[in-house]
């Protein structure tokens, strides 16, 4: 661990006063040391995190995630061998097969939650974090980051992971399930997405915007 005695392990939270998003109570946030989390006094909501090196870590996880996401889309996740036939399932066919079975809305939902939102989250996060890192934010930074924050709950790859496990067990006794190349990449993708959402600290981006717009 690198330590610098002249620099105490504190970040400038910039906004010392914050209103709790869940109960509106105004509180003063003391300087936080590394990996400390400030909770609301009244309702215990998380107000502020001070994570070590969060921009670099998040960027690393996001780039790893994007590479794994591309690999996950290229090859089949699962294949089913039954009655001498093999049926391959990729991320895209899972979404499109519902369309062929007369469920266009469910198909669209699958497409959004398992392909489009995860892709925009990864690409958008990399773009924003690179801007923050190179001190190069422009007028699109805030709207893009707001979009990413509001669509965060709609990327549902980790739920698809659980669904894959359920499918494996369900089909296990009637057919041979072959684990596809993509499945390994997909498991690692879930891991990097989890680590990304854990390490990403939105206030890194908001603080940059506050400095630029001289507000707060």
């Amino acid at each position: 661990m690198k330590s610098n005695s002249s620099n105490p392990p504190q970040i400038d939270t910039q906004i010392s006063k914050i209103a709790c998003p869940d109960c509106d109570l105004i509180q003063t946030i003391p300087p936080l040391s590394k990996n400390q989390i400030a909770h609301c006094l009244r309702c215990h909501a998380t107000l502020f995190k001070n994570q070590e090196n969060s921009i670099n870590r998040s960027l690393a996880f996001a780039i790893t995630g994007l590479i794994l996401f591309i690999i996950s889309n290229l090859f089949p996740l699962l294949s089913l061998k039954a009655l001498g036939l093999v049926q391959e399932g990729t991320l895209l066919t899972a979404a499109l097969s519902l369309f062929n079975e007369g469920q266009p809305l469910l198909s669209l939902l699958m497409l959004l939650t398992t392909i489009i939102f995860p892709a925009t989250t990864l690409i958008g996060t990399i773009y924003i974090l690179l801007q923050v890192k190179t001190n190069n934010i422009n007028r699109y930074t805030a709207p893009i980051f707001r979009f990413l924050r509001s669509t965060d709950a709609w990327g549902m790859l980790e739920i698809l992971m659980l669904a894959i496990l359920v499918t494996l067990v369900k089909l296990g006794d009637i057919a041979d399930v072959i684990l596809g190349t993509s499945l390994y990449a997909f498991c690692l993708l879930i891991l990097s997405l989890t680590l990304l959402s854990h390490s990403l600290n939105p206030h890194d981006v908001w603080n940059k915007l506050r400095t630029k717009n001289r507000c707060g």
Partner: protein
Amino acid sequence: MITARTAGLVSCHFCHTLSKLPKNMEANSVIHCPCCQSSLHSRHPDSLRRTWALLIAALILYIPANTFPIMTFIYLGEGQPATILSGVMHLLESGLWPLALLIFIASIFIPILKLLTLLGLLLSIHFKTHWRPKDRTVMYRVTEFVGRWSMVDIFVIALLVALVQFGNSATVTPGIGAPAFAAVVILTMFAAHTFDPRLIWDTIETNQLDSEDNNGK
């Protein structure tokens, strides 16, 4: 105990920057956060009405979601349409009880918990109750967090439909119940999103202010 609203401030939903609310604001004017340009609201606009509308729609769709089949699994000429509940019972009969438990929690327990929690929270605000505001806020946070996991059943159907396509010998077709159930999950996710937990605390503050006024503050 001062809240942003009593101090005449408004906190940005996204970046949490506090801004001063202009004194003479016109009824329909919108102010924007100086930091991230998001539109600013002291409380989510029309929070209660929107949450009620979405919740009632979800409650109505919950009926077809459970009574109509979500999928039909035909294997070697055998099989019949399955609803959410009969799917869980079938898994239980096949001895796959961990799977049955998982699907039961994700597809039956969580949606009911979510609908009842939101209903309870809305009613608690309408009746201006002071009952355990902290616990109610925690309940809200849990509801908001677990809601999306109900989607697992829909994803299982999508995977089965994609994989099990072997002509006449084995097929899976989605049923009417599937889009209805997906709609329940989406509507409750939106309902949880439009609900403003700060309303839970507002009733308590109004009361405190009243008593302070009575004491001749």
